[in-house]
């Protein structure tokens, strides 16, 4: 699939009121045709700030001083917020608080964004059913959202956002409460989307499988970026978790035949390296 996306950040900095350090420092990047961008880094790296910038919620709703210029596809999240917001789906870090809290059933919650857009009720029903199936919530449609577990609430938050088929998805650690099965379902779905995705997560294994671009952040700065393969092989500090594939291959000495020194970061590459090691 070819993705027609354009991402521009030029010298973007963010400072929150009464904070001693800027949350984002001189962030610059220019990319085209990306599909899934994984954002990784330790606590206080600036990941959530970046998500708020991408969603346009900073500085519109969250107080902060923003300098520099940034643009996603043809839009500036800051200047074209209304139009841009119509194209985006955002999952915030605290996903369960993102639910409206006043819908009586999961189905109503899933329909909320569609009702707001004035969509016909027949269509709403269809879309709700489809998205519920996608996220394993079909059996919960008539339950109250309050009755769901943490992981289910997170799935509901995601489902109620993607029900409008947004062109751009911004997700801040969307799987933190999910059990391993839920996570597997989510990342599998993520790979199938046609949206441009920005996702922060501590799940480096999953990101290495699905992302075609990784941004490594530290203390508000972009430390490195590129494919997961490039980033994890360039940046080998123990302060960053590496995918299990990479760790396993490193331990076993399975390098990729293409350059004879890098280790695989996803299963496909692992197989390649494994067979190359077997052959030699």
């Amino acid at each position, binding site marked *: 699939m070819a993705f027609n996306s354009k991402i521009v950040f030029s010298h973007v900095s963010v400072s*929150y*009121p*009464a*904070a001693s350090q800027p949350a984002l420092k001189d962030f610059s990047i220019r990319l085209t045709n990306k599909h899934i961008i994984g954002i990784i880094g330790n606590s206080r790296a600036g990941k959530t700030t970046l998500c708020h910038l991408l969603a346009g919620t900073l500085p*519109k*709703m*969250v*107080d902060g001083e923003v300098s520099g210029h940034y643009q996603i596809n043809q839009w500036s999240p800051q200047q074209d917020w209304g139009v841009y917001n119509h194209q985006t789906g955002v999952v915030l870090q605290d996903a369960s608080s993102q639910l409206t809290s006043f819908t009586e059933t999961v189905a109503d919650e899933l329909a909320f964004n569609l009702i707001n857009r004035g969509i016909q009720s027949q269509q709403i029903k269809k879309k709700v059913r489809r998205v519920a199936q996608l996220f394993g919530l079909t059996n919960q449609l008539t339950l109250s959202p309050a009755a769901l577990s943490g992981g289910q609430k997170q799935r509901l938050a995601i489902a109620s956002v993607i029900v409008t088929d947004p062109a751009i998805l911004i997700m801040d650690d969307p799987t933190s409460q999910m059990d391993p099965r839920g996570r597997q379902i989510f990342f599998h779905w993520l790979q199938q989307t046609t949206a441009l995705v920005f996702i922060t997560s501590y799940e480096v294994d999953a990101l290495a499988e699905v992302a075609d671009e990784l941004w490594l952040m530290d203390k508000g700065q972009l430390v490195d970026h590129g494919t997961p393969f490039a980033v994890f092989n360039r940046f080998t500090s123990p302060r960053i978790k590496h995918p299990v594939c990479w760790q396993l291959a490193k331990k076993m000495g399975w390098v990729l035949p293409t350059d004879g020194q890098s280790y695989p970061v996803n299963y496909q590459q692992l197989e390649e390296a494994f067979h190359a090691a077997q052959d030699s």
Partner: protein
Amino acid sequence: MQNKSTSHHPLWKITLSPATITLIPVAVGINYVAKAFAEGLKLPVWLGSLGTFLASMLGGPLAGAISGFTNNIIYSLTLSPMSGVYSITSIAIGLTVGLLFARGWFKTKKCILLAALVIAVISAVISTPLNIIFYGGQTGIVWGDTVFALLVGHHFPVWVASFLDEFMLDILDKIVVAYLAAFIYHQLPQRLISFFKKVR
């Protein structure tokens, strides 16, 4: 009129910004839960205006007033039907707290005590006529009403007895709530304060 502390946050501006719209239900919720909690602990105070106090401090006097009003209307339509008439008192409390807070009355311990006194007087002044119209001057709290009965029995005018009945209960409550609210406000992380104070 110039007032530096309010230049960023116009005192009387009330746009129903999304922040205010979510702040008001929260204030009502805090009122309710704090009240239930105080009852559970069997404390001699209500704490039922803690949320209104915080809404006034965060969102200004009008946000506080709307919170207080909404609080009593919702109460009367869900739990205790008669609390609707005291919505006037709650509006006054919201306005007073917001004004006093903007003038820095919640900064030192002494000032807070004074603020609590002012709020209790205003609250009692407004509640007294309501108590007289609806309850013959009583408040429904046993030890307050005992005082009321004693005073009326000794030929004090009903409105004086009723005012003292209400004020006695109010003063303790408002002192506790004022200190509690000031302490909590002080504990709030910066991100929350700037979010709810931000004017859009």
